[in-house]
């Protein structure tokens, strides 16, 4: 099992991935070799089945093609366009042409959104990229991306420390500035920048260190205390624990700073005059303007957060005033707030409504394609649907932007057999109707055979065999394909349970076997398999296999005997 070598690639492919390598860092400085040099191609209108056990890297391969995340090395070309070299913006523009359907239909659909918005989403993103670029939005995006790319380069814990530190930094500056100027009474506008610039860098470093320590302690506490499931499920949950710790630390730090400042002044009046508060207001105002310039990107919750922050600040101001003027300012700011909220909401909603209206005919059309009645479904939410129907919605979402290639990652694995048949037939119909090109990832060979024009078998990050399905299933060429075939449960009580031959587990992808990666479970393994990695080669027209002793073609059985004979002698 090598999968090295590109003998099976064709020159006229619509999508072509070459020598994809995906590696993830693991604990203790080790590396997970998830995908190690997989090459695949896909002709227009073809369905490529990608099979293997869980952990063999088939899903990772699918995602690497989508650049989610980008592969460690290797190239991916879609209709001649190289995807691995594109920046984030350009990738977003490619994604409408390259869609994905996930295994679990319920959790891949946002439970709080309506079907009409979920299905239309790829359209909004496509439209947004093409036509919605104000100068402000572009500027905001560039800054955002710069920050993002800086953050991406830092390791996760460093990133959190950085975030915490920046928040704490602002708060500290405010309190220090206010404290220093307290004796002098009024804080002059001109003194604010000086106070900020003069703040020693050393303090920042000390602070960052202290916060990292605190954050780490809280993380450990959470990891111990949090109930079932959290520790063992993957990264998402761990990072949400870290995020939670971040919130706790930030909240604590803010509370401390506020208490300190207030107690050293003894009242809101001084706060009002501090100037630092005005600075904070200004920052928030800029933030608000930027969010409003592009509410689609900021999202409703982002805008709402900004507005709430403004209101909190206003309360501080008002609290510092006396008598009749207090009442007047209170009323005035309430009126301003009401108008502002109304304006923001309307702007946001008008945009959404216009988008919706434009997208609606398209959404209705794809819902009908996937066999869902749009009149019933448009205003419902995903959890109101059964698993099979929800998978239809996922398919509709993938179809709406008329993609060139759809990557289906185990789309029927969590469905009942009867529903599975409906979804498989639907994919087949849509393929005939719309000329779709599919990558179909699954562990069930019977399912893969049903939908595929070409099947690629993967094992531990490498390709074993690439072939047309009927030939492969009649006579598997790779021992691993044979093993997978034997494992399929047959709905026939007379059928032989060939499962007795299946032994062992997938080796760890952190420490793959030398030579052929399948040799540790292969009944035909010989010394050569440990020493030398087999190359992908054509053993019959259209049949490619990466094995030293394939079960088909040439004089396969003889070679197996020779191999075992020579092993016996030695």
């Amino acid at each position, binding site marked *: 099992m090598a999968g090295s070598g590109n003998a099976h690639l064709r020159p006229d492919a619509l999508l072509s991935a070459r020598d994809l390598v995906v590696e993830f860092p693991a604990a203790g400085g080790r590396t997970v070799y998830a995908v190690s040099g997989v090459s695949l191609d896909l002709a227009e209108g073809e369905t490529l089945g990608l099979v293997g*056990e*869980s*952990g063999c890297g088939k899903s990772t391969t699918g995602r690497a093609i989508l650049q989610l995340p980008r592969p460690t090395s290797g190239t991916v070309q879609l209709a001649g366009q190289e995807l691995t070299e594109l920046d984030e913006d350009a990738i977003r523009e490619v994604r409408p042409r390259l869609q994905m359907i996930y295994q679990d239909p319920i959790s891949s659909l946002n439970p709080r959104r309506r079907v009409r918005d979920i299905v239309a989403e790829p359209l909004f993103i496509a439209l947004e990229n093409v036509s919605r670029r104000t100068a402000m939005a572009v500027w905001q995006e560039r800054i955002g991306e710069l920050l993002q790319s800086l953050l991406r380069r830092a390791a996760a814990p460093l990133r959190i420390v950085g975030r915490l530190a920046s928040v704490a930094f602002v708060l500290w500056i405010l309190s220090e500035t206010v404290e220093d100027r307290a004796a002098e009474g009024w804080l002059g506008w001109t003194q604010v920048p000086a106070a900020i610039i003069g703040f020693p860098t050393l303090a920042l470093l000390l602070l960052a260190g202290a916060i990292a320590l605190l954050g780490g302690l809280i993380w450990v506490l959470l990891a111990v205390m949090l109930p*079932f*499931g959290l*520790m*063992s*499920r993957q990264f998402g949950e761990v990072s949400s624990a870290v995020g939670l710790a971040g919130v706790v630390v930030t909240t604590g730090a803010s509370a401390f700073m506020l208490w300190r400042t207030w107690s050293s002044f003894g009242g809101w009046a001084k706060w009002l005059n501090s100037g630092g508060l005005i600075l904070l207001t200004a920052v928030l105002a800029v933030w608000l303007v930027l969010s409003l310039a592009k509410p689609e990107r900021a999202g409703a919750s982002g805008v709402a957060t900004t507005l709430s922050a403004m209101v909190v600040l206003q309360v501080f101001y008002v609290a510092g005033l006396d008598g009749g003027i207090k009442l007047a300012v209170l009323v005035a700011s309430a009126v301003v707030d009401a108008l502002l909220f109304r304006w923001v909401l309307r702007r946001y909603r008008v945009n959404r409504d216009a988008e919706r209206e434009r997208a609606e005919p398209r959404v209705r059309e794809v819902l009908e394609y996937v066999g869902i009645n749009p009149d019933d479904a448009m205003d419902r939410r995903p959890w109101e649907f*059964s*698993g099979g129907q929800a998978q239809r919605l996922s398919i509709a979402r993938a179809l709406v932007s008329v993609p060139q290639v759809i990557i289906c990652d185990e789309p029927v694995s969590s469905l*009942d*057999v*009867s*529903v*599975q*048949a*409906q979804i*498989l*037939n639907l994919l*087949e119909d849509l393929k005939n109707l719309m000329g779709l090109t599919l990558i179909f990832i699954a*562990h*069930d*060979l*019977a*399912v893969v*055979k*049903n*939908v*595929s*024009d070409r099947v690629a078998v993967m094992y531990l990050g490498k390709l074993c065999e690439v072939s047309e*399905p*009927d030939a492969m*299933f009649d006579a598997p060429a790779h021992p691993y394909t044979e*093993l*997978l*075939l*034997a*494992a*399929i*449960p*047959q*709905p*026939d*009580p*007379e*059928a032989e*349970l060939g*499962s*007795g031959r*299946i032994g062992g*587990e*997938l080796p760890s992808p952190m420490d793959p076997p030398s030579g052929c990666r399948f040799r540790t479970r292969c009944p035909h393994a010989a010394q050569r398999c440990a020493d030398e990695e087999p190359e992908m080669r054509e053993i019959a027209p259209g049949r490619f296999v990466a094995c030293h002793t394939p079960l088909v073609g040439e004089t396969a059985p003889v070679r197996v005997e020779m191999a075992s004979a020579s092993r016996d002698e030695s």
Partner: protein
Amino acid sequence: MSDASVPDLPGSDGRPLLDVAELRTTFHTAVGPLVAVDGVGWSLRRGARLGVVGESGSGKSVMSRSIMRLLPKSRVTSTGSVSFDGIDMMSLGRRELLEMWGPQLAMVFQDPLGSLNPVMKIGKQVGEGLRVHRDLSARAARSAAFDLLEEVGIPEPHRRIDEYPHQLSGGMRQRIVIAIALACSPRLLIADEPTTALDVTVQAQILDLLEAQRAERNMSLVLITHDLGIVAGRTDEIIVMYAGRIVERAPTATLFSDMRMPYTEALFRSIPKVSDDSHARLEIIGGQPPQMTDLPSGCKFAPRCKYAQDLCYAEEPALIEVPAPTRSRSAITGDGTGGSDGGGGEPDVTHSYRCFYPVGTDDAAEALERNIASGRVNEAGVVIRADD
């Protein structure tokens, strides 16, 4: 049930190990009562293997939980009788149930991660039942756990015994769950979709393991699944459930060679088979599973059935019992309706189904023709106009 002794089933004294009769489980929901299991009855002999097949929502898991008495007390009622080796399960209190779970009945669930304690070492979890039921010391329980891990095929048990569930793969976790279930040598093991979350290769390994352990311990096994392929080679008798009812029950070989219930046929045909050519059209079951709070009158499957006639909508067919045509011997006896069947050597092998137009009969062929002519069913045999 049959009072004849069955010589080839060691340990059998002729009485069924588990006898379920008229089991009915109702959930009291906000929109009214939901009868998840409706009048189900079957019995199982010692050492026998029963497959329970049905779609999600057919009541197969609720049935197994009702038998185990695992359902919550509030807003759920179970009636009928469940007799385990003469003990009336329905009348047992909490304390007596704790005595039963483990040494008598045990269960393996679909999601191994959800049934293991993430903060307890594997060895301790496997040995826990032994400490409770057998009063073993910590040391003895640990060595018994070690043996169990070896038995269920965990590589390097000396290392795994001190690991936590999240350090294992899905297949290994399911092996641990099986080891826990087997720890007190139960006489009945109910496996509820034990392999649905697993790969085909691991699935085959787990099913082999269950079969080997069952045979070795002369344990009875109930294998619940939605996949006919899984129960085909691994059970003696199969029950097919739909809308909380048994719609067909037959010895495994009979069910596959001579299925009578249109629902069973539809389930069977919707499975993609390796022997079919690629891009072969799968036969689908049109429509949706029924709304359990608002079941159709008549046959519950009628709206999705390609043979359905007016009679099917008007009247619910009873579970008809006929002798099974093959001479293959079932380890399971009749319906739990009494000990009237067969005093002779062979237990009666029966085939039951709930249909007016059973598959394979001339009546069914005519019914299908009529439906195609009326446009209710298309040429491919799929119901296109569900509501008649």
